[in-house]
């Protein structure tokens, strides 16, 4: 098998310097603020981008979680990798990831971004099998394409991960269910 573009192998090197005034209580307080305004970057590659758009529209309405799609990496916190990552697109994804400021997270949406999905087979020459080959992925949303509710649950799971559990949509839902039963 001739050499296939191996640019995807070395992941993105970022020099992360933690906050100077970074004591835990302050960071937790700030995380509560960050969590309720997760601005993803519009960055749809393939079919999953349509379901990401559907999640942003009237019926599933991501705005109620404070999630507004920004088209430039300079103003976004979350990079939702929605679609198949081809070798030709890897340098661009790395550039966009490096150009995003401050605390940032990655959601791998759809089977293609998780593991190459329906296009992953032994002789595949065109795609990278998964975003975690070169990006620090936080949340994996399975599905081909995942339903908009799946993406919303992924974002809520990201909220739980950022605030280390203090904001937990599922726990709130269970409490509401218990209250309703009483």
């Amino acid at each position, binding site marked *: 098998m001739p050499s296939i573009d191996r640019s995807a192998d070395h992941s993105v090197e970022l020099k992360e310097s933690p906050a100077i005034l970074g004591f835990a209580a302050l960071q937790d307080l700030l995380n509560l603020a960050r969590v309720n305004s997760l601005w993803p970057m519009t960055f749809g590659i*393939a079919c999953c981008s349509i379901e990401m758009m559907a999640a942003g529209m009237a019926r599933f309405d991501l705005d109620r979680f404070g999630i507004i799609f920004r088209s430039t990496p300079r103003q976004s916190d979350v990079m939702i990798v929605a679609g198949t990552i081809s070798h030709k697109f890897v340098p*661009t994804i790395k550039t966009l990831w490096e150009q995003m400021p401050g605390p940032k997270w990655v959601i791998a949406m759809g089977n293609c971004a998780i593991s190459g999905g329906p296009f992953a087979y032994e002789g595949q020459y065109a795609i990278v099998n998964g975003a975690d080959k070169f990006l620090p992925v936080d949340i994996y949303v399975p599905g081909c394409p995942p339903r908009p509710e799946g993406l919303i649950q992924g974002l809520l799971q990201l909220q739980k991960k950022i605030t280390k559990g203090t904001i937990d949509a599922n726990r709130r839902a269970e409490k509401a269910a218990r209250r309703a039963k009483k």
Partner: protein
Amino acid sequence: MLNIKTIDDASINERVYQLNLGPQHPSTHGVLHLLLKLDGEVVIAADPIVGYSHRGHEKMAENRIWEQFLPNTSRIDYLSGLIYNQGYCMAVEKLCGIEVPERAEYIRVITSELNRISSHLLGIMAFVMDIGAFTPFLYGWDDREHVLDLLERVTGSRLTYCYNRFGGVRNDIDQEFCDGTRRFIDRLRGRFKDYHNLITENIIFIKRTRGVGIITEETALEFGVTGPSLRGSGVNYDVRKNEPYSVYPEFDFEIPVRKEGDVMARYQVRMAEMEQSMNIIEQALDNLPEGPVRSHVPRFIDPPAGDIYFAFESARGAVGYYIVSDGTRVPYRIKVRTPSFSNLFVLTRVLPGNFIADAIATLGSIDVVVPEIDR
């Protein structure tokens, strides 16, 4: 720490600036990279660079059996997935001479036309959003969700369908689906008044689209443009009418054609086409025959050796499967002729001379789906 680039004097007296309307751009409907040479606001040359979502569908066709390629077909153009599904199944049925029961043909036409409406809804509203109107996008998606609910009841998925099989469709449609479709069509007809008030009579929209990005019939012929982009330039070519397939000859619908060939004409053709699709669905629902939905086909089919080209009409234009089979259980070669490929590269002839804003409006009106170009 801030690296101020030194100004080399070569670039000072040069007026042509190269701009990347790049892979990650809200108006390119996916990962299309348009390299524009600009003189101030005016586009001098446009070079579309594609391949950012190339997944190798045609290579996958050569290492899996005929049935395994079905899921790929709806991922080539995920906005008209059912139409591509129907096309692939009809091409293989024609190759093997498989009979399809009457009811299955009607169900295929109903689901394909619903899929065409949902694809046009998204194509038009995304194009209108590129010009700056965000509200129609919300209305369009509201209607689209209704179509997706209907299709999800029957096919099980919202976007990447795999509903057609060789010899028919996967399962039957029930009365609830038929009533739901009729309710949806009445509702959408009412919504067309809103769309015309909101978009067609909007003075800003008219100023931005009238006389912009004109594709002449000659250019269309040279580049092989098909679909609404061609019917906006005065050529009455629709594969459903010109090369009738399936049960389309039994419905009477006409093909909307406009003469001007500008961005407004292509938009009006798509709006009129949605109304025609609704006529077809109603006629198909009215005389939906009874009977089985799938003829008996062996689990693994062995088509005879030979090659076949089957053309059908997707929301973006004439799609064609060129299939070469060598009589075994695995296709020898499948070439998918996608309309967006030819429609996109006509931009290299149409864009020079316009402003950037017009270039984005023209790109939106061509309504490309990028994985369809990259395959």
